[in-house]
């Protein structure tokens, strides 16, 4: 049967690995301790102001060369050239902003050339009183549409996975936004992966137990070593979650 995934998300600012809090770079780290064996998948996101700089592309080269699990890359993909750039470098999938729900043509072009399963759409959300809205531009701009609406629209146009991230939970270590995730995953048949708030292994378990979520993403640098990932997987296995050894 299909296993649940644990996905390491690495955010880079001008070529330096950072963890973020509420989408702002917070704590710098070095890539020397990132496990590439036990992890199920790796996502690299460029959070620099000036993207596509050599410093990030060098990082991409490093992971393409050394990583034998799926590698997804994102950050500033706004046209076909930029998508091509990352795929040519060796990305298996790209992560694009949900603002692309407006750019159907681009999504279709990428789909046609690389397959819809090569596209992960990042759905960054923020809670506003009773409901959620989707945001973009690193959390600075509000799209003013509901996450479900955008998720459905983009899935219909064509994407492989949706990555749900709650800006408030980002870096909090207090757990995922289960309400948001449950809402979206029960309304669209797209594989969903979630990011934002992973603290202890119970948070991962809660995520897998309340929804048919595909993968748990963590941006928490303390989850990146093989010891940590091993520990997380053993915990999940002991609670009957199907996960790759």
């Amino acid at each position: 049967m299909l296993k649940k995934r644990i996905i390491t998300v690495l955010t880079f600012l001008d070529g330096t690995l950072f963890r973020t809090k509420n989408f702002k770079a917070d704590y710098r780290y070095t890539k020397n301790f990132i496990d590439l064996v036990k992890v199920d998948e790796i996502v690299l996101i460029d959070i620099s102001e000036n993207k596509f700089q050599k410093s990030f592309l060098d990082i991409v080269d490093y992971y393409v060369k050394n990583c034998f699990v799926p590698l997804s890359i994102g950050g500033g993909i706004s046209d076909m050239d930029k998508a091509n750039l990352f795929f040519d470098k060796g990305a298996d999938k790209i992560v694009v902003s949900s603002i692309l729900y407006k750019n159907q043509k681009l999504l279709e072009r990428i789909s046609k050339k690389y397959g819809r399963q090569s596209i992960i759409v990042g759905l960054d959300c923020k809670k506003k009183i009773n409901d959620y809205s989707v945001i973009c531009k690193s959390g600075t701009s509000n799209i003013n549409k509901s996450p479900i609406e955008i998720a459905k629209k983009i899935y219909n146009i064509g994407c492989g996975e949706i990555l749900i991230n709650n800006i408030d939970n980002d870096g909090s270590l207090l757990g995922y936004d289960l309400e948001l995730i449950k809402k979206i995953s029960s309304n669209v048949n797209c594989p969903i992966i979630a990011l934002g708030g992973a603290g202890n292994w119970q948070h991962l378990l809660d995520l897998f137990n309340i929804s048919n979520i595909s993968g748990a993403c963590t941006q928490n640098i303390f989850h990146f070593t093989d010891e940590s990932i091993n520990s997380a997987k053993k915990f999940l296995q002991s609670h009957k979650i199907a996960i790759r050894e």
Partner: protein
Amino acid sequence: MIKFCSKCIMPNSRPRIQFNKKQVCNACSNSEKKSKINWQNRKKEFSFLVDKIKEFSKKNSLEYDCIVPWSGGKDSSSIALKLKLDYGLNPLLVTFSPLIMNVVGQDNRIELQKIGFDNIFISPNQKVARLLARRFFIERGNPKVAWDAGVNSSPMRVAIQYKIPYIFYAEHGESEYGGLVLNEESLKKRDLREVIEHQIGDYPENWISKEIEKKDLYNYIYPSDKEINQLGVTAYYYSYFFKWSMLENYNYVKEKMPSFKENITGRTKGTFTDFDSLDDKIDCLYYYMQFIKFGFGRATRDSCRMIQNNQMTREKAIQLARRYDNEFPIDNFKEVLDYLSLKDDQFEEIVDKHRNNEIWKQHKNRWELNFKI
């Protein structure tokens, strides 16, 4: 790009530090705000709190009025003494054992206890403590990650066991030294979210491995919200009620306890002071690794505090930082290596792995800082 605070010399590579438009760090901004605070009012607030505490103890027939997390150093000792001698409270001192105990720290604890304090001294399983110290030194360049968890959770656990709902911490690190303040209230009362995020960075429950079971982590795991809320424990920062100054704390302790000792070997390696952070032999390595990872060492740390208290000029601070930050933690080095079960060459390899390419570059087989203060 590394930038420095225009008032003190802390770089922006310090985790969570924030600079305003004038490139002044939040520790400096905060210390400026401190001079504008009506400390008389805060003192009054404190007196009310003390009365409330005494009332509670009387009503519940408690032997101790409050818990003071205590290392034996000048900061926690000054609080213990003030609470007892100036305010007539009976604090229970809670200590989480240093990794490698230093004679100076031990002697200072004995001296303070002679004045009349009870102390709960928690010394955890050394097999587990060493494994964790080694693991996190390798993975995070910080041998004290687990210790941080222990020193944070022990006072809370003892408070719950003894049913004492008041804890007095020293200073609020994030606002005093540059970091992220979650909200205004957290300057007065300790916010649990802050503890996990900033103090420890991880949940000790996650450290279960082939060699470590959940029961081995008892001393590190923070009590649950349920337990804390049931008793209604509040942890206060002394620095909210009284203007915090490292130097003044030291002077106060020396006055009440002339036998308080400084570093017997003189100046502490990596800095210019001899009276701060002395009770764990691993501390020099701890601060040295901060320098490796973030580019600021113990001298920077100590001098920034003094600048903020108007006890040193920025120029002098720069001199001291350039001179001492990079000093190798040679004191007790063999003992530290042994504690971490590492050989010399393994040690060097690990240290180098933690050098961030933003801060370090290699020049003719030597490591050099990418910047100059």
